[in-house]
């Protein structure tokens, strides 16, 4: 019985389910009978109740809705944005529907976002120093390098997201400009509350919203309104007695800031790094007060590794920097620094010179002493408002350098003494002004420099040329040189959609003068005009530079085009007086195309003209070093250079494989050929000869890197091949010279565990030179470095590194080096103790070989002996 009832109930249920389940199918169409996808179909009991079932129409407009437990009546609604909603009440039965939606003028109801929600959390990305600071960190640089995206390069330059930063502000003031390392490496981390990263920072307020900046700046926020901070460091070591000292006090408030620094060492550390200028100068200036040394000592090539292992110095550096905010937008800055250094260089060179007729060998033992005194200063007035930008910078730079050198040769001992004092002043004015909607930049750059130099060589050289073959006691080369220039321009930049165009019009004048005389002591015959110069060189130019840039929205194309034209006039007065007028057109083009996510292709080409400078225009001989006499008794050098390059880039960040292949070709045409007359004793005389000649060069480069995740190791390989051909004039014979150069570099970086990492890098170089068809000696060099780093405990750090150098000319096996560094931090007292033992094997010399078109030099450089240095540092 029970079963029967059950069966009846079951059947009843089934029937009612059949009744209650309704399936609606159909299509939704737009007015023009176009199938409509994405339309929403809902079923409810009536127009006001909630949804029972729904469907969304497919791409062909079809839909299917299953309604379980369907009520008596079904209310169907079909809707789509911008179309009138279709509504219909249906009977409870499965059916097929054809729905058409008509356009509607009704828009969706808008809801305005309440303004308080939009309020930003502040526009500046800032990092709290506390969050990143470690107990080992002393100065702000230690903390900075741990912040995401920030990297500090070995020289002290700060990069953010791979690009150098633009400004380093302390409380919004730009005290040190590009020489920010001084603050960065001495400001106590404890004094800083926040580091703000100003991304896409445009320091010039007039340019804000006119010129997009890709570079970032940093602003250091201090904890207190008035901050006195600084660092002190003292190091002692042996042997000989070594010291290292650094005291850098600083004072900051919102309107006035001051940093002073005194640093001294004899450990080979280059303190000049702390005053190095990392300012970013967007337009390289052709005119400046750079120091030119007309005479020099012969010195052995410096080793290719860190200079604290070979530089024998005794340096003192004092620097003072102040900034005062005069008005809200007007700052005055003064920076002064004085450097005094005494350096010793010892070494020997073995030079082999190949001439078409002969091979000349020279062996020299070198002992040089350099005395460097440099005083420089800068006063800057800067006004930075929304309407105007003005920056005037007055700068001076003076050197009082003298050098003494002794060269030992198999047959003689030659003493040299030179002095290269230098004085230079310059003034830079930049003014940005808006005219209506157009921004115009004026720039005026004026400078003056003077340098009176001498070189004494004892006993006198070049007896045949200078003294009819008779020996004489001393030769004295005197030089007086000066330079005065002014460069003025006005320019503007305009953005037209995806194009940016820049226009600049300017004129420049430069007047250089050179007086020189070579005097022989104890000689009765005065040297003639051939050994004197009284030359004046004027350069005038008017230039119009126009450039175009294009970047499409998806950034797949990036095109730059430059079409600068200039009219230049050169006027040389003196023994070699002549004029040259030239109209120059130097177009350049760069095209970059991102082909796909992984491939990128770029090509570029440009044409450049070069004209002789006074350094290559004097008609009378100058003794530039004890075995080199030089003159350019020839027309003004004119060079035309064409350069083309193409590069293909593959980048797969997922597989971590990166490949780059590039090729470049260059061809330079010159009207002059420089020829050397080399004597068996190694003395050489350089002269220029009028003859059109070409230099062709090809360069192939292939670079690949891959990260092996399983081994936590990255591998990098680089191969390059260069070939260049030129004509050479050696001992009055014309020779065709062909050089080939093949380099192979590889490196490995491996993190074996959290407390152990390894690195290795090695390079092989093959250098071949051919004079006419005769192959000269081939030179191969190799170099290997390996380092192990250990972090056994948190406050200790140990590194051990070894190096090996070898070249095919010598069997010198003592080119091994070993260094050890150990650091211990006293956590409680905020004091760092550091112990460095360098050159453990006490390698005396570094032996290296280098090669050029027609000579090979083998160098031996006397290194710092094995030494131990212990240092203590603290910040306040």
């Amino acid at each position, binding site marked *: 019985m029970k079963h029967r009832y059950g069966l009846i109930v079951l059947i009843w249920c089934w029937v009612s389910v059949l009744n209650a389940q309704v399936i609606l199918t159909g299509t939704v169409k737009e007015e023009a009978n176009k199938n409509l996808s994405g339309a929403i*179909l809902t079923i409810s009991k009536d127009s006001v109740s909630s949804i029972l079932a*729904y469907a969304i129409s497919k791409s062909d407009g079809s839909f299917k809705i299953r309604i379980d437990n369907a009520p008596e009546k079904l209310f169907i609604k079909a809707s789509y*944005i911008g179309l009138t909603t279709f509504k219909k009440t249906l009977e409870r039965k499965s059916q097929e529907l054809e729905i058409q939606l008509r356009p509607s003028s009704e828009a969706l109801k808008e809801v305005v976002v309440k303004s308080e929600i939009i309020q930003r959390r502040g*526009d500046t990305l800032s990092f709290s120093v506390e969050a990143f600071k470690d107990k080992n960190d002393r100065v702000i640089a230690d903390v900075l390098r741990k912040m*995401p*995206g920030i*990297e500090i390069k070995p020289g002290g330059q700060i990069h953010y997201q791979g690009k150098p930063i633009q400004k380093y502000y302390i409380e919004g003031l730009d005290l040190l400009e590009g020489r920010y390392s001084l603050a960065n490496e001495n400001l106590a981390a404890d004094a800083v509350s926040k580091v703000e990263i100003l991304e896409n920072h445009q320091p010039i307020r007039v340019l804000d919203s006119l010129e997009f900046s890709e570079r970032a700046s940093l602003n250091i926020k201090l904890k207190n309104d008035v901050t006195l901070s600084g660092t002190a460091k003292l190091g002692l070591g042996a042997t000989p007695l070594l010291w290292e000292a650094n005291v850098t006090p600083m004072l900051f408030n919102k309107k006035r800031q001051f940093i002073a620094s005194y640093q001294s060492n004899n450990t080979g550390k280059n303190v000049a790094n702390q005053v190095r200028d990392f300012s970013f100068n967007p337009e390289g200036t052709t005119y400046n007060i750079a120091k030119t040394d007309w005479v020099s000592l012969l010195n052995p090539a410096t080793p290719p590794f860190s200079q604290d292992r070979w530089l024998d110095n005794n340096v003192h550096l004092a620097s003072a920097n102040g900034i005062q905010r005069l008005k809200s937008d007007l700052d005055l800055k003064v920076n002064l620094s004085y450097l005094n250094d005494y350096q010793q260089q010892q070494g020997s060179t073995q030079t082999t010179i190949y001439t078409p007729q002969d091979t000349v060998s020279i062996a020299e033992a070198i002992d040089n002493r350099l005395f460097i005194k440099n005083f420089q200063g800068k006063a800057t007035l800067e006004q930075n408002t929304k309407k105007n930008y003005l920056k005037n910078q007055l700068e001076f730079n003076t050197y009082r350098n003298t050098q003494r050198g002794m060269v030992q040769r198999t047959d003689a001992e030659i003493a040299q003494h030179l002095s290269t004092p230098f004085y230079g002043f310059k003034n830079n004015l930049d003014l940005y002004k808006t005219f209506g909607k157009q921004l115009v930049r004026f720039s005026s750059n004026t400078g003056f420099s003077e340098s009176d130099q001498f070189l004494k060589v004892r006993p006198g050289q070049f007896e045949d040329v200078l003294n009819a073959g008779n020996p004489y006691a001393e030769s004295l080369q005197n030089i007086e040189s000066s330079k005065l220039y002014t460069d003025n321009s006005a320019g503007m930049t305009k953005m037209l959609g995806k194009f940016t165009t820049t226009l600049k019009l300017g004129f420049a004048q430069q007047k250089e003068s050179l007086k020189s005389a070579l005097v022989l002591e104890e000689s009765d015959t005065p040297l003639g005009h051939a050994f004197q110069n009284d030359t004046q060189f004027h350069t005038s130019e008017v230039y119009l530079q126009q450039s175009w840039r294009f970047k499409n929205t998806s950034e797949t194309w990036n095109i730059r085009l430059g079409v600068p034209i200039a009219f230049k006039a050169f006027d040389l007065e003196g023994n070699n007086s002549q004029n040259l007028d030239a109209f120059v057109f130097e177009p350049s083009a760069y095209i970059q195309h991102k082909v796909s996510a*992984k491939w990128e292709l770029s090509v570029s080409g440009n044409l450049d003209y070069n004209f002789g400078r006074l350094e290559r225009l004097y008609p009378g001989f100058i003794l530039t070093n004890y075995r080199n006499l030089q003159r350019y008794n020839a027309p003004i050098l004119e060079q035309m250079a064409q350069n083309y390059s193409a590069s293909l880039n593959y980048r797969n960040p997922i597989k971590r494989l990166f490949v780059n292949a590039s090729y470049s070709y260059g061809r330079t045409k010159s009207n002059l050929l420089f020829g050397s007359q080399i004597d068996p004793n190694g003395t050489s005389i350089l002269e220029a000869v009028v003859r059109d000649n070409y230099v062709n060069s090809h360069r192939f480069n292939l670079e690949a890197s891959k990260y092996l995740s399983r081994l936590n190791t990255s591998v990098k390989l680089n191969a390059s091949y260069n070939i260049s051909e030129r004509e050479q004039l050696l001992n009055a014979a014309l020779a065709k010279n062909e050089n080939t150069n093949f380099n192979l570099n590889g490196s490995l970086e491996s993190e074996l565990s959290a407390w152990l990492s390894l690195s290795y890098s090695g390079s092989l170089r093959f250098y071949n030179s051919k004079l006419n068809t005769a192959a000269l000696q081939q030179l191969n060099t190799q170099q290997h470095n390996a380092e192990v780093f250990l972090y056994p405990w948190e406050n200790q750090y140990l590194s051990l590194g070894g190096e090996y150098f070898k070249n095919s000319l010598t069997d010198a096996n003592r080119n091994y080096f070993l260094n050890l560094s150990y650091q211990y931090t006293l956590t409680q007292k905020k004091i760092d103790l550091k112990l460095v033992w360098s050159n453990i094997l006490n390698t005396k010399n570094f032996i290296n070989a280098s090669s050029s078109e027609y000579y090979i030099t083998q160098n031996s450089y006397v290194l710092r002996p094995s030494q131990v240095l212990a240092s203590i540092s603290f910040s306040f």
Partner: protein
Amino acid sequence: MRLYTYSFFLITFLISSLGFSQNKLKGKLEYKVTYKLSFQLDSTDADSRKSELMILYLGEDFSKYLSRAKTIANPIVVQGNSAHTSRNALTHFHYEIIKEREKDSLLYLLKIPKMEDRFVYAESKQQFDWQIAQETKTIEGFTAQKATTTFAGREYTAWFTTEIPISDGPYKFNGLPGLILEITDTQGYWDFKFVGLEKLTPKIAYRLNLKQYEKTTRPSLEKLWHRYRSDPMGYANNPNVVGTPEVDQFYRDAFAEMLSKENNPLELK
């Protein structure tokens, strides 16, 4: 010659139509929906709660979802350059999600900040098994109905409105008979609230070239993103350029700590 040319084009066409059937996406964006997303990246620290505005653009053929910060960081609009961070840097969410109306899959696009590396992965749109409840409430004047679902390891409650007849929502959420106005996971870690709807006049033209995007999958993109976050510098410079090892050690520790505080992503699984 002609045959070669034709077959070249044909082959190119075939290759480009494989996998991602379409390399270019083009259209106009008509409406802008704004959500306030409040989220807690560190599940162990309630104070780590942050909020950001997110935008869902509705177009004729597709929708695009991204952080409001990214919509402002348009390089042509350079106002506010001086002493300001471009707001681009301030977002936690660098991705965009494209849902094409006629397709069953959605696209997750990611450009590595400050780099030219772009990635995309496709996923099914139908990841949501919605349960519609009968409850209703009013949100900003729209009648919204409740629905629930599970997604990537979390359970969500959503409120949608049929008055905005588009089956879309913030992030990857979609599939309801109307726009999702609110959606929150049961623990309240990820909470999207509707704060605005605006008709765009004129419409914004949008164009996407998928050829510039490297096709990948969600797991490998998540791995790559983690690698970028743990060492942006290393990522940027062909990963092998390393500073001094002692600095690197500090660097790694600092980032490991930072990333350990981001233990609560929207998609747990």
